[in-house]
C-alpha cells in the first residue's frame, strides 16, 4: 500500500498526469455529448472542467502541477487560431461581398455586450478592478488577459470571465436563437455561427463547429475579427474616456 501511495505521488507530479487526465476526461465528455445528441447542457468543456477540477480537489493536486501536463494541450490553441484561416479562406467569396455588413454586426454586438456588462456591473456595485476585467470577456482568454492589463483590470479574472462567457454562449445560444426565430437555412446558420463567435469567442465557435460546418466557419471569422477589433479598439476607447 505504501508503494502504491508513493507511486501515485510520483505520477501525480509528472506532466504525464495532467496531459492524460485532460485527454481522457475530454474523450469521455465528448462521448457523452455525442450520446445525448449534442444537447447544449452536455457541453464537453463544461463537464470536463467540472470533472477535472473535482478530481484535482479530491486528489489534492494543485493547478500548477496539473498545468505542467495540460500545457501541451493549451499550447495547441496558437496553431488552432492560425488554422481558423482555412474555413475562412473557403468562404472568401461571401466574405469579400459582405465584409462591411459583417464588420458592422461585429462592432454593434461587441459594443452592446461591453456596454451592458459595464453598466449592469456598476449598478450592482462591483468594484472598479472587477468591472474593468469584465470588459474583454467576449474575446478569447489569452487576448482578454492582455486587454485587461492595458485598461487596468486583473488579467487572471479576465481569463475566468472569458471562459464563463464562452460557456454561457455555447450552452444557451440555441434557445435564444429559437426565441428570436432565427431559421436554420444557410443564411440562418451564417448568422447563428457569426453571433456565437462574436459574443462567445473560441468556446462558442467550438460549439458552432460541432453543430454545423457553415456556422463554425463564420464563428471562426467572427472571433478573429473580435480579437482584432477589441485588441485595437478597447484600449483606444478607454484612453479616450480617461482623457475626457
Amino acid at each position: 500500500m505504501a508503494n502504491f501511495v508513493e507511486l501515485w505521488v510520483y505520477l501525480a507530479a509528472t506532466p504525464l498526469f495532467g496531459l492524460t487526465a485532460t485527454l481522457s476526461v475530454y474523450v469521455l465528455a465528448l462521448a457523452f455529448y455525442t450520446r445525448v445528441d449534442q444537447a447544449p447542457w452536455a457541453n464537453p468543456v463544461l463537464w470536463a472542467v467540472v470533472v477535472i477540477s473535482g478530481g484535482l480537489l479530491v486528489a489534492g493536486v494543485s493547478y500548477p502541477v496539473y498545468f505542467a501536463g495540460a500545457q501541451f494541450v493549451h499550447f495547441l490553441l496558437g496553431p488552432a487560431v492560425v488554422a481558423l484561416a482555412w474555413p475562412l479562406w473557403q468562404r472568401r467569396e461571401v466574405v469579400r461581398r459582405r465584409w462591411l455588413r459583417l464588420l458592422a454586426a461585429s462592432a454593434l454586438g461587441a459594443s452592446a455586450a461591453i456596454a451592458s456588462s459595464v453598466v449592469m456591473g456598476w449598478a450592482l456595485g462591483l468594484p472598479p478592478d472587477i468591472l474593468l476585467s469584465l470588459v474583454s470577456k467576449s474575446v478569447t482568454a489569452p487576448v482578454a488577459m492582455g486587454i485587461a492589463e492595458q485598461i487596468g483590470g486583473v488579467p487572471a479574472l479576465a481569463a475566468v470571465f472569458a471562459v464563463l462567457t464562452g460557456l454561457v454562449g455555447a450552452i444557451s445560444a440555441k434557445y435564444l436563437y429559437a426565441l428570436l426565430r432565427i431559421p436554420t437555412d444557410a443564411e440562418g446558420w451564417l448568422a447563428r455561427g457569426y453571433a456565437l463567435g462574436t459574443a462567445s469567442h473560441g468556446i462558442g465557435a467550438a460549439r458552432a463547429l460541432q453543430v454545423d460546418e457553415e456556422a463554425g466557419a463564420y464563428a471562426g471569422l467572427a472571433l478573429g475579427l473580435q480579437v482584432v477589433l477589441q485588441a485595437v479598439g478597447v484600449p483606444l476607447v478607454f484612453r479616450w474616456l480617461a482623457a475626457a
Partner: protein
Amino acid sequence: MPAIQGFALLLVLQSIGELLSRGLSLPVPGPVVGMLLLLVALNWRVVREPVSACAPFLLSHLSLLFIPVAVGITSYLPLLGTYWLQLLGVIVVSTWIGLAVTVLALRRFAPPPDTPDAPQTKEAGRG
C-alpha cells in the same frame, strides 16, 4: 505526411506572427497575425494542400484546447466568492445581449434570398 507538413506550416506562420506582433509591438496577438498571413498564403497550392489535411482535425477538437485554461477557474474561486451572484448575472445577461444584437443585426443586413449575394451552401473541396 501532408498532415504533419500542415502542422509545421501552422507553427511557422504562428512564429512569424509572434515575431511581427512583438517586434512591431502590434496590439494584435501573434496567432491572429499568423491567421491573417495564412489567409494570404492559402492562395498557393503548396500551402493549401498540407493545411487542408491538418486544419479540419485541429479545429474539430477546438473545445479540448480550452480545458486547461478553464480548469484555472478553480484557483480563483475564493477571489470570486463575494461577488459570484452579481458576476453570474452580468455575464449571462450581457452575453445574451451580445448574441441577440449580433444575430439580429445580421438578419437585418441580410440580402433578400435568391440574390447572388446570398451565401453559398456548398463549395467544392471543403474539408
